[in-house]
């Protein structure tokens, strides 16, 4: 699925649409250059879930954690990951069997240390054009993608 995004509010809307599409657990890879809107998408997701605190990029902290009633959301940014083993120190394994939604930016820096992705969002930003490519990477990802189409998050924009 490919979507054109007019502005930041539409990136937020995609995040909100994802909240309406994903079950209580899942792994989302976020791909795109700096400033492409990866954290904005996560912010849109959390705002839709009723979280009204600060949502900032985990560039320096590697991970930010948010607690919702029915799940936890872990937002990783692996851009500054020096060694994939750092993920072990963060206890990533402890989270795998739980109800957790993972957003992982820059997954390529830790490939085999990460849980298997269900869906990948690739954010493109060339000149004035912003675009989003959605690729399902598992059966669950296919369900998420089909529901995202159904929810049609940009419809009400």
């Amino acid at each position: 699925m490919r979507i054109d995004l007019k502005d930041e509010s539409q990136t937020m809307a995609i995040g909100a649409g994802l909240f309406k599409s994903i079950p209580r657990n899942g792994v989302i890879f976020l791909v795109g250059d700096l400033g492409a809107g990866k954290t904005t998408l996560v912010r849109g997701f959390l705002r839709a879930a009723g979280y009204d605190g600060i949502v900032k990029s985990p560039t320096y902290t590697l991970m930010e954690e948010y607690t919702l009633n029915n799940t936890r959301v872990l937002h990783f940014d692996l851009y500054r990951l020096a060694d994939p083993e750092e993920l072990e120190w963060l206890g990533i394994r402890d989270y795998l069997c739980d109800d957790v939604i993972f957003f992982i930016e820059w997954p390529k820096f830790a490939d085999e240390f990460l849980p298997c992705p269900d869906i990948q969002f690739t954010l493109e930003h060339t000149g004035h054009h912003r675009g989003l490519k959605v690729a399902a990477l598992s059966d669950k990802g296919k369900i998420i993608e089909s529901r995202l189409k159904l929810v049609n998050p940009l419809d009400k924009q």
Partner: protein
Amino acid sequence: MATDRTLIDALPKFLYRAEQVRAMDDYAINTLGIPGLDLMQNAGAASFQIMRKQWPKLNHISIFAGSGNNGGDGYIVARLAMEAELTVRVFALAPPEKLRGDARLAWQAFQSAGGATDAFTINQSPENGLIIDGLLGTGLDREVSGRYADAIKIINKFNGPVLALDIPSGLHADTGFPLGNAVRADRTVTFIGLKQGLFTGYGQEYCGNISFASLGVPLAVQESQQPSSELIGVDDVVLPPRNQNAHKGNFGHVLVIGGEQGYQGAARLAAEAAMRVGSGLVSIATRQAHASAMNLTRPEIMCHGVECGGELLELSQRATVIAIGPGLGQSSWGREMLNTIFQHNLPVVIDADALNLLARQRCFRDNWILTPHPGEAARLLEKTVEEVQKDRIAAATAIQKQYGGICVLKGSGSVVCEKETIPGICPLGNPGMATGGMGDVLTGVIAGLLAQRLTLGRAARFGTVIHSAAADFAAKAGERGLLAGDLMAHLRKLVNR
């Protein structure tokens, strides 16, 4: 959809009323556009999966199908069982051609796969295998009668295992009270959201083991409702490690007041429980006649004979927490002790006869914890025990409102109510706990935690859940013959994790 993946989710913490779970269902189908049949399909598949996992050798299944969506779930299980080459019989309470909506589609799919149904009559009863209860769902709010009641009675006479879909038929989803007749299941798979009635009152008794299947609905569906109550877990509170240079004054001083002639054991059990969960010091104020004998086998407890309010007031100067009630009696001595307590402002745990006395006085206070069993709760509210048990969450809430502080309504699925917080329900515990002294231990546990400066709410919740958890450990040797004193060693383990 992946078939190798488990369709059963971990049990979530939050609980909802039936109407809220219906609203989630409605939101998923009508707002997010998820086909209702997909949800039904997932519900049936999850149920079938857990059935095969728990009873892999049972190849003969009888499905009781009602006229609504619960019956629809049953038809999905029937079709999956047939595809797996099991012997399937369906007893239909309503002619399937009269089914509507998704339930009708589920039946049609079963029929196209070659399935047949029998109309239910009271002469048919399954002889072997396993029963699936798909009679009535969570919408029920009046007594079950007629053919449905007959079917429930036949299911309950059956010797083999029973798996209930969403809720045992006849159980009230909000209160856990059986509506005249209810199915006694060995396991219940519940869908989309946990219904609070499964966990309190008769809920667990009728449900058996409880499994949860979210049906893969989007997170937004579950987050669309604010929970009505929540399960309390033993991991909700972790007590901090003690400092190397700690002294006994750091961990409070519980004063247990009670132990009228003939009931000394009650105060003694409460005192020991307070010590076993880590209170720095524990004293007992009791009748002069037996005060010196009470701590012979547990000299760590300080024991004082106290005959009048003045003496008690002086003794309580050194305490940081009061626990009053175990074996207090309702004579003039007990009344004088309780009235003295009203004169100062220490946190108090009020139990047993102190509750019976309180029921006559109707005081309000913010810093106490009331721990009634249903009988005491009935007296506090001037209701019958049955009225209390018919809606335990409402009863606990009413006591909290009327008397202030925190109310712990004991009994299967203890309910903890605190102002401005959703009620907590304790899912642990066992019938072995129905013996004398068990409540006295709870009083001591909560007081001992208060002494270590847990807030009232945390002490009430954590105390209730570790008390039940300790009883579950102790009951591994058998529920029958379990003694309140058997909890002590386990309590100690639970506060040192």
